[in-house]
Structures are given as C-alpha cells and as structure tokens.
C-alpha cells in the first residue's frame, strides 16, 4: 500500500477544471517532485491533497489506505499531511516563535519540535521575537516550511518554494532539504525550477494542462523527454 493514492481525480475551482483524470501514488519516505509550467495544475493537485479542495467520492484520495477526499484540511493535518502553501501564508501579526507554536497546534509528536526547527533554520532562531510581517521573502519561506514541520507530518507538501526568491536564497532554503528527508518525512514538492527539483527528488512527475504526462526517476528520463513534456511539444 502506498502512503498516498490518487485515483482518476478531476478537480478545479468552481466551473474551472484544472485536473483531468490524475492518477498518482506516493510511497512512504519517497521524495517526489511535480514539475510543469505555470497553470499546469500543480498547485491544484497539492490543494486537493491537503483538503483546500475536496473530492467526490471521498475514496478517490486515500492516505495510508484511509479515504480522505471529503475531510477538512484541519483533520488531514491530524493524520499527518502538512501543506506549505505557495505564497507562504505566515501569520503576519504573530512573532516567528508564535507562528511555530501555532504550527504545533495538532499536537502530533515526533522528531520535530521547536528547538529542532531552529537548528534546521538558525536564522529563525535569531528572529524568534520578530513579527512575521516584517520578514523578507526568504525568511518567510523558511518560517513557512519550519511551521509545516512542527506538526510532524508523514507527508510534507511544498508548493513553489522558490517562487519569487533570489537564486542565492533558494539555494539556502534547499540546504535544509536533506535533513527533512533524512528525518523520514515523505516529501511531495511542486517546483517550476526543474534543476532544483531534479537534485533532491527520487521520482519526478511532469504535468501539462492538468494531466500527468511523464513520470520517472531523475536519472532515467532524458532532458529531451522533460523538455517535451514540460512544453507539450
């Protein structure tokens, strides 16, 4: 049994359909990257998994064998799904420390706690008592990931971590990835930056216009195949 199973998902916003017949399996402890151009449906896919978008019938989305398609986001957090949203969504009026405390609201225990995430992102320890709205984009992204880890997820969903950040900053944030993977967390990340995605992922899936078009290990698939899948040529 896979940790996460999606079975012919058709999903979207209101009248706009963004996903067409998506089938996806994520194995325990795997690091899986979804790549694709803007508007390919990558974020919609993650939102379907974390519960911001619900699915009917509910058993089309299964987590650890359990049907979760109709479940609210907060209940999915309790099961161990943590979503780090595109645009970070830090709590601006809370301090960095309080943001992390709120991240632990679900009371799931495990390897991650507040000291461990400060170790992972030392810059956050320095900013501990600062309100989040004054942070830079990179700092907010680090905080958002750290906050996501506070619920000790079995599956961590990372949405466009590198979006709007300078390459140097992106590099710095991705330095934390090995520690997260080593902790036994399964990671599903969405990236436009194919290079970054290939560096860390065990498996890569490419999306085009709401469909999964290519899947494989980074070593197995050729640059040409990725190029073709990415742009649909």
């Amino acid at each position: 049994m896979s940790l996460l199973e999606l079975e012919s998902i058709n999903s979207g916003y209101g009248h706009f359909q963004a996903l067409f017949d998506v089938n996806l399996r994520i194995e325990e402890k795997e690091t899986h990257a979804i790549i694709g151009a803007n508007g390919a449906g990558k974020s919609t896919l993650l939102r379907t998994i974390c519960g911001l978008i619900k699915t009917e019938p509910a058993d089309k989305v299964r987590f650890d064998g359990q049907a979760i398609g109709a479940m609210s986001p907060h209940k999915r957090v309790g099961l161990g799904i943590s979503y780090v949203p595109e645009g970070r969504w830090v709590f601006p009026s809370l301090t960095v420390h309080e943001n992390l405390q709120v991240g632990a609201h679900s009371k799931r225990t495990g390897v991650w706690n507040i000291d461990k995430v400060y170790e992972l992102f030392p810059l956050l320890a320095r900013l501990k008592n600062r309100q989040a709205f004054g942070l830079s984009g990179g700092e907010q992204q680090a905080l958002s990931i750290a906050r996501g880890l506070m619920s000790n997820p079995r599956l961590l969903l990372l949405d466009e971590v590198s979006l709007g950040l300078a390459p140097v900053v992106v590099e710095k944030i991705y330095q934390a990835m090995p520690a997260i993977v080593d902790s036994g967390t399964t990671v599903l990340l969405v990236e436009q930056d194919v290079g970054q995605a290939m560096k860390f992922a065990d498996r890569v899936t490419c999306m085009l216009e709401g469909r999964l078009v290519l899947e494989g290990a980074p070593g197995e698939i050729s640059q040409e195949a990725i190029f073709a899948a990415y742009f649909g040529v």
Partner: protein
Amino acid sequence: MAKQSKDHVKVERYTRTSRVALPVAAAIVIAAATIPAWGSSAIMKQSVTLLTLIGLAQMWNLLAGYAGLVSVGQQAFVGIGAYTLWVFADKFHLNPFASVIFAGIVAGLFAIPTAGLAFRLRGGYFAVGTWVIAEVFRLIVTQIKWLGGGSGFTIGSVNSVSRHARESITFWLALGVAVGSIVLVYFLLRSKRGLALTAIRDNDLGARGLGVNITRSKLWVYIIAAAGTGMVGSVIYLNLLRVQPEAGFSLQWSALMIFSVVIGGLGTIEGPIIGAVIFFILQQVLSDYGTWYLILIGALAAGVVVFAQRGLWGTLVRKKAVDLFPVRRRLCLETVCFTEETPRKSGEEPGRLPSEEPPAV
C-alpha cells in the same frame, strides 16, 4: 458559416413567462387602481401598508442586493421623508400630496453627507455606521422645537380635502411608489450603470479591472435608494398622519425592509414583492398575538438567509428559470439557454484563494 450561426444563436432577455408577465402585471395594477372606487377605508389603509412595504423593500434590495451595501439605517430616510412632508405641507403650505416629491429630494440630499461618512466603513461596520447616523438624525430632530421636539406632530394640512379624497389620493400615491420602485429598479439594472453594478456584486476586483468606478456607482445607488425611501416614508405618514421621532426613525423600518427582501430573495426584483406580501400576511394573521409575528418573521429570515440563501423566490427561479422581470440576458443556442449569472456556491470557494494571500514582503 457566419450566417448560419446567426440563425441559431441569439441573445435574449425575455422568456415566454416574462412576455406573459408584463400584461398580467399591468392588468393587476390597473385593477388595483380602481380600489378607491369600491373599496372601504380599511381596505385602502391596509393596501397602503402593503404597497409602501413593497416600495421600502425594493429600495433596500437595490442597496443590498445589487450594490452590496447592507444598511440598517434606512429608517433615517423614512423619518426624513415624514418630516419633510410635514414641513412642506404644514409649515410652507404647499400641497401635501405634491410634497411627496420634496420628501424624495430632501432625503436624497441628506444621503450625500451620510454616504460621505458611512462609506468610510466596510461590511458590517458600514451597517452599524448607517444605524448610528439614523440615531443622530432622530436625536437632533428630538431637540428641535420647530420640528415638534420629542412629542412630534400631526399632519393637519391634509384635512383641507375630504377624508375619502385623502385616502384615495394616498392610496394612488402608494400604488405609484410601489410600481415606481419596481420600474425604477428594473430600468436602473438594464442601464449601463446597472450592468456595472451587477459586475461589482459578482466580482469587485474584476469590475474594477474593467474600469468601473465602484465608489461612484455605489454612491449613486445610495442616493437613489435614500430618495426612494424618503418618498415612501412620506406616503406612509400620509396614511398614519401622526409623526413621532421615536417611531419615524425606528429600527423597525429596517427590520421590515430587510426581512421582506431576505425572505423573498435578495438581488431579484420579484423577491422583495413576494417577501413584502408574506410579511404583510403574517402581520395581519398574527396581529392578535403581540409581536410574535416579528419573532416568527425574524426566525424565518434567519433560516432563509442561511439555508435558502437566494430567498423563496430565488430558490424557485434557480429550479425553474422563471424570470418575470428579466434583467439578465440569456444566450440561446437553439434550445439550450445559459444565463449570464453563475450560481454562487456555498462553503469552499477555492476560486477566491489567491486574493487572501498576503503579498510577499
């Protein structure tokens, strides 16, 4: 090719039902206009109550249902209408029935500074803000001796005509403001500004993107609704004759219009009419049981607003696509028709997601 598609695709506003509805409505209005010839004084008084309720509900619906302005302070304009009528008729000795026009003008003028303050507030705070302003009008009127102070006054000038003539003219005025309010909302919504309004209601940001001046459109609606409410208010007091600040500026007027609109269906022209009729019937049937009718109507309104959001009429229309006063255009492809409006979804609205994100710093 182009020619062929022209034959099969047309944009319609009228449905079969609406083509029938107009003559039927006209017949009802003409029949109603004869009531003074045969109806008793009590029937005329009751009819005025119902007709003015329809007028009030239409004006509130214009405000909330189309411009998204939830005001609980429209009683300000009912009161201003009543006082203007009295000032123009009893103090300036103008024709009391013609003074209804001045009631509208004065209410519209007072709406300008009111909007200047209230438009600084959003959503629920706007609602309470308008309420505070209505209270201010009430308290100021109470302090002015020239306006009768706290005890109010009786409109005496109408006694220059016979009782039957007064009741008949009041009835026709009430019929006039009821029909007028419906016609006004209908044509307003079909105008360019009306389309802009609908755009605002459906998507604030999108409308702004299309170059719609939202604040100005809303201001116009606010002034028009205030003027309409003022006129209706003056007709109400031609019927009641006794004006007191407590009653004229009472929150009950807001309860009346809000409940009628909500029960009937917010954002439709038919809804407020249906709602006003339901309100009126319940009020009459339960008149022996004190204020229980208000409790019942309040509960009905709270229930409808939550569980049948589009009101009784709106719920019916969605199922049957009946439009008596069509303000939407329908695209007709041979037999299948799509209305412009998309049904509003409850609960999850993922389409709104991105706008909630705080901008990256």
